[in-house]
């Protein structure tokens, strides 16, 4: 109890320091937002503890959101303000996650249906933004349904896998295919939907997490081979069908040869990272704002430039700590659905961070996704807060 209070005080201290720093040489119009982010997380912590959930995840999450807000503030006031409004909605999303009973048997397959409905809705009624039809408009508000759909999909997949585990484990042949078939068909349709919307990052993320999850629930060599084959086939077909995928591959493999074309963005990201060296150039001293999409896909490069290797090491360690805490929570629950949901959420975060950062440092192709909790994007932040709530609720003793 005491250590918890101390941690939050310490966090308040860090945020205070950040405010003092930010106030130098500029008017701190929105300083209260950073304070409000701290207060919001503190209240969530109290609420979580009151409801018997896991509050330890909130500290690293608060640091990540605070850091993201500071960098968006440094880039453009409006982005920080918009992110803050996303955080406010995120508070509610967290409470939904925390209080909902996501493993309740009565939910059956409703999450899968909801996810499919969201994606089909986007396809039918969506708005084109930046080369992808990934937005739904609700009156004056716009959001990206895929951010929520992938949480729903994880919830659905985990339930399906766990409930049908004995049947899925049957060796080869017709019996197993009968139960794998519908799941594979469903997931295939979902991925196809995402591909048609040109939202390939989330498609790849979902596929990866889905493969790992099914491998964890139903360990089988054959499965692994099948998924690898599918992945290669998918990438091959994708490369044939979508010219922009080929450009991305070129940018990944040969950025120096196409330095002023396809490779431009990734090189600018590398230049930014490289100029940060070990300790960074200091917040506001970098030139990362010259990278296109710096506030979403490339915010990590800006952090690398201004806080250096030390900064990004700390940032990645926060994700690692969150993954560790999340997996520990998964261990502490007796309900397999809750357990694999927790694992699934941790995997969603981790694989996403890997794909984003790996894309920036040319380990994997660029996929154009946000850095969880940090990057600009209110849909993303709300969905992340919701996942945080779900994870915090794991192991909560509830009336069934």
């Amino acid at each position, binding site marked *: 109890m005491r250590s918890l209070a101390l941690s939050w005080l310490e966090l308040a201290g860090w945020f205070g320091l950040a405010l003092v720093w930010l106030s130098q040489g500029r008017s701190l119009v929105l300083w209260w937002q950073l304070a409000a982010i701290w207060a919001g997380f503190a209240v969530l912590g109290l609420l979580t503890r009151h409801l018997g959930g896991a509050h330890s995840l909130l500290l690293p999450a608060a640091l990540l959101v605070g850091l993201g807000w500071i960098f968006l503030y440094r880039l453009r006031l409006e982005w920080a303000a918009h992110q803050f409004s996303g955080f406010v909605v995120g508070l509610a999303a967290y409470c939904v996650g925390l209080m909902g009973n996501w493993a309740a048997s009565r939910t059956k397959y409703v999450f899968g249906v909801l996810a499919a409905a969201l994606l089909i809705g986007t396809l039918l009624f969506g708005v084109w933004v930046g080369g992808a039809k990934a937005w739904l408009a609700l009156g004056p508000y716009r959001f990206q349904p895929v951010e929520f759909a992938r949480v729903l999909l994880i919830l659905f997949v985990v339930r399906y896998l766990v409930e049908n585990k004995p049947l899925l484990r049957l060796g080869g042949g017709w019996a197993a295919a009968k139960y794998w078939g519908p799941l594979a068909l469903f997931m295939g349709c979902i991925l196809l939907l995402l591909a048609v919307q040109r939202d390939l990052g989330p498609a790849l993320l979902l596929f990866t997490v889905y493969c*790992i999850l099914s491998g964890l629930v139903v360990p089988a060599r054959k499965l692994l081979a099948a998924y690898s084959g599918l992945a290669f086939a998918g990438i091959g077909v994708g490369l044939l069908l979508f010219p922009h995928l080929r450009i991305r591959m070129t940018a990944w493999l040969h950025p120096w040869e196409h330095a002023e074309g396809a490779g431009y963005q990734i090189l600018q990201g590398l230049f930014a990272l490289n100029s940060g060296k070990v300790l960074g150039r200091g917040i506001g001293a970098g030139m990362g704002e010259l990278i296109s999409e710096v506030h979403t896909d490339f915010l990590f490069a800006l952090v690398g430039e201004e806080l250096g290797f030390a900064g990004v090491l700390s940032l990645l360690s926060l994700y690692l700590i969150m993954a560790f805490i999340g997996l520990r929570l998964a261990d502490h629950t007796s309900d397999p659905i809750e357990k694999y949901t927790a694992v699934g959420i941790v995997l969603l975060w981790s694989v996403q961070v890997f794909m984003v950062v790996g894309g920036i440092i040319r380990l994997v192709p660029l996929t154009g996704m946000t850095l969880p909790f940090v990057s600009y994007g209110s849909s993303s932040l709300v969905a992340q807060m919701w996942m945080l709530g779900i994870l915090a609720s794991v192991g909560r003793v509830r009336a069934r």
Partner: protein
Amino acid sequence: MSSTSRKSFTAILSGFFLILAGLIYWQVIADLSDHPLNPRRYDVFRQPRGAILDRWGTPLACTVRQNGDYVRVYACPSLSHVTGYFHQRYGMTGLERTYNSSLAQGQEVHTTIDLALQQKLEALMEGRVGAAIAMNPKTGEVLALLSSPYVDPNKLDEFWSDYAADPRSPFVNRATRGQYPPGSAVKPFVLAAALADRITFSEERWQDSGRVVLSGRTISNFQSQGWGSLTSLEALANSSNVVFAQLAAKLGPRLLDTLRQCGLGEALPFPLGSAAGKLPPAEQSAYGWGQIGIGQGSLLVTPLQMAAAVSAIANGGQLMRPYLVEEVRGGWRLPRLQRPVVYSQAVPQWTAAAVREGMVLAVQQGTAKGAALPGVIAAGKTGTAETLTGDDHAWFIGFAPAHDPRIAVAVVLAHGGLASETAAPLGGLVMQAALEACTQGGMQIER
């Protein structure tokens, strides 16, 4: 941890370390700062920048703020070959380039330049093509360095296309990179070599009929004038080709050793960079050596080399390493101080003293009469180097006061004509201005 969690965490941890390895490579090991597409390469233009100062602390280049932008302002256009320029579009040159990392961190570069002297030099060289260097012969400090024509670093935007189209190439630093045949200005060093090798002595008598035949070909004096009976020192003063062709022919390849020890044929270490010039091959006929002894043939030198070499004669034979920056200080870095460095013993001390007397004679009654100074004994030597195209190059090298030298100069006027009529008077004025600068500075320029 359960096996599920353990497996997952192992996978996540390996991903984490994979990413860390990549980050260490890109952030710590790789260096992309100089890639042409990296905008940070031009980042220095957005920061305040340290000043470049002259020896008395007067700014030669400093940064001022205009409407929120940093603008670099230069005190003296003719110093554009020293300070260089620092321009968003045209990049950086000179000391701005050499000391960029220090200047970018706010450090000041203290040069050895005397701004007042440089401005006088600028007035003296107005309208001519060539170079002039004034140096402290005892230390190697460069007090003024001028290459004409030059660009005005304050007006690059206005006149860039004119500068680029100028056939006289104002961007070329003739003082450090201009390579000219030295003509008779090489004779002091030929005499030094001959004296050191005991081939001749100061008072040796020569008969000069105005022409001499070496390996079947004739070398003659200027206008084939015969000097009759004259000593080696008088031969230097009157610039007798007859005597010096014979001395060089006797020395042969040993002449090259002395020239090399005087810093010729080698790029001297200098913050602006410098050209090496050219020494002739060691295989020559007697006529070939004779040509080299009078500074023709394939021998090429830079004004910087000649200033350093004549300083060695002035100071008793030590070739001092020429330097331009005495201190870099300010910011959080430790200051860096440049002290005088003896580069090599060019010629023995007694040889230098004898050659000095010959050069004094040249100013008193020889070809360098035009360089005589009121009330001060000066030493000097002219050189008129024949060129394949156009007028001859006119050289003057010298120092003053002859017996306690505080200033050494090297002047070259490209296609300047007869040196005794052009370069020598100019050299005298430069020495005079430099001596005045030494006393007016309130301190003697000596260490």
